[in-house]
């Protein structure tokens, strides 16, 4: 009985969140809508990183690089070849999938810390590489785009339209991720994280899984980058520096390692906390990020999502226990 109630409650909760998410852009000013679009974009990128780091146990300190590659793929396609906005997003995903897979291939041989080192170096190298190919990327000046208008005469302004496009992409990607990470594939991915030798002994092709997860994770982050390029209507190499990678990592940790819903909490955190902190000092956001990173590792290693799950289990369990106790009395 309690189980059915739990599932129904979960569906109701999801429906409520979705309804609020759809109503949001009509209740707020343009700038707020833009900020929430950014939250959705971060959530996609954070989910991508979490697949790799949280679920598969491969530490990446360089996902900002894939975010940048996605953004530049979109920007160059629109700027140089005048291709429709919608088409650039799957291309950005495909480019990042391939780059991620190719980077993940040699990374197979790098365990834990070495992968962290290599990806850290990647994060530092990418802005320089972007500046170097000036002919394509516009060098340090970056590329300026224009925001797309809502098609088919929809009564939405540019910010609202982008918000709904991003929300649509997010829903599709979250459903795909939740399917990928549950069942047989998901178990294999987590088994590699927990003990890759045992996983291999059980017949899991660890090398293939790891590089595919790397590719998919990079593709998610690339899609987020592409959407952010369109939403901000500007890309520049220095916005994709190593601190972007740290931002995504902070989102993963705060939201909850190895949780899907955590991506939303993490994205809300990395989007809004710096805004408030900026009032204290220009340096404050990163001091706060750093303190949260360390404190969460000590006291809440599974982040906000993990904490809520624990709370939920405690509550339902105590309810079940009380029910049992009453039954015994009767």
């Amino acid at each position, binding site marked *: 009985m309690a189980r059915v109630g739990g599932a129904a409650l979960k569906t109701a909760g999801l429906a409520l969140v979705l309804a609020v998410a759809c109503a949001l852009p009509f209740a707020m000013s343009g700038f707020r809508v833009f900020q929430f679009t950014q939250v959705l974009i971060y959530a996609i990128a954070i989910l991508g990183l979490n697949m790799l*780091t949280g679920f598969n*146990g491969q*530490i990446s*300190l360089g996902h900002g690089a894939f975010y940048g590659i996605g953004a530049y793929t979109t920007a160059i396609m629109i700027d140089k070849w005048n291709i429709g906005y919608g088409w650039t997003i799957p291309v950005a995903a495909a480019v990042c999938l391939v780059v991620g897979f190719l980077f993940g291939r*040699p990374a197979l*041989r*790098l365990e*834990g*810390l*070495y992968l*962290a*080192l*290599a990806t*850290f*170096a*990647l994060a*530092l*190298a990418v802005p*320089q*590489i972007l*500046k*170097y190919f000036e002919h394509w990327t516009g060098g340090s000046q970056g590329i300026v785009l224009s925001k797309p208008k809502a098609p088919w005469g929809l009564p939405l302004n540019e910010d609202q339209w982008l918000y709904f496009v991003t929300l649509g992409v997010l829903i599709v990607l979250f459903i795909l991720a939740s399917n990928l990470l549950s069942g047989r594939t998901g178990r294999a991915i987590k088994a590699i994280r927990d003990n890759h*030798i045992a996983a291999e002994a059980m017949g899991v092709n660890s090398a293939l899984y790891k590089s595919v997860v790397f590719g998919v994770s990079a593709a998610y982050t690339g899609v987020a980058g592409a959407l952010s390029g369109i939403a901000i209507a500007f890309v520049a190499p220095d916005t994709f520096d*190593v*601190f972007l990678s*740290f931002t995504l*990592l902070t989102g993963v*940790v705060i939201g909850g*390692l190895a949780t899907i819903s955590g991506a939303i909490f993490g994205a809300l955190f990395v989007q809004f906390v710096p805004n408030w902190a900026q009032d204290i*000092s*220009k*340096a*404050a*956001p*990163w*001091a706060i*990020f*750093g*303190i*949260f*990173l*360390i404190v969460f*590792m*000590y006291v809440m*290693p599974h982040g906000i999502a993990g904490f809520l799950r624990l709370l939920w289990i405690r509550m339902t369990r105590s309810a079940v226990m009380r029910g049992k106790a009453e039954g015994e009395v009767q």
Partner: protein
Amino acid sequence: MDIFIQQVVSGLATGGIYASLALALVMIYQATDVVNFAQGSMAMFSTYLCWSLLQAGLPYWVAFVATLVIAFAGGILIERVVIRPVENAPILSIVIVTIGLLVILVSVAGWIYSYIQKPFPSPFPNKPIKIGNIVFGAHDLGAIGITLVVLLLLFLFFRYTTLGLAMRAAAQNPTSSRLCGIRVGWMLALGWGLAATFGAVAGMIVAPVVFLDPNMMGGIQIYAFAAATVGGFTSPLGAVVGGFLVGVTENLVGTYVSFIGTELKMTVALAMIIIVLLVKPSGLFGRSFVRRV
């Protein structure tokens, strides 16, 4: 040929800086199996402290030594307070904690000292030294000298003192060392203190060249990673040789391979790290371990 020798010497000078920082990384790695991503920002912070001491009017070498002492104490404090709670946690947790430390140090330095670049004095004369036809920067030669002195002191400490022996024992076999009465926890903390000291040396030598700025160690840390990877994370000697090798390679590639120049420096470091990890993951001097399942 003259240009070649000049470039090699200036490569050795930057190599010395990479070597000091790589040595700091290797010391911590050997003792605790942790790569300290905050090593560079700890060095940056120490250098800012030295700048404050100099502003207060202390002579250079007094400030230099005082900074080393403060960095040593700071390193121990960080190990005790920040790292100890996650000592036995998975690698991911420790990496995240050191990243947290990195961003805190960078932002606090920016908060206190602002993000504007500051000049930092060199203890060596400004005029170049001429040997034959070749001109050497005095700071370059001084940097090489300081690095070598530090390395010699470190070698003597680990080779000939009881404390050094205890530290090596604690790193190699914590359980047996504990049975011998070595306080392993404190040995690890000492290791962090020493590593912070080397970082401070590297920071103070490099600051006159790159100017003082909260992000000044970012690129240098990547090169130190490359140095430690080339030499092998398990070998202090390797870290030193790796540091000099990487420094010289960086300079020669920058001079002679025209399409790289200074614009793709990070990519060179990235390529070095990946190539070494693929070809010989244990590095030139490292040992590889067989793990029991």
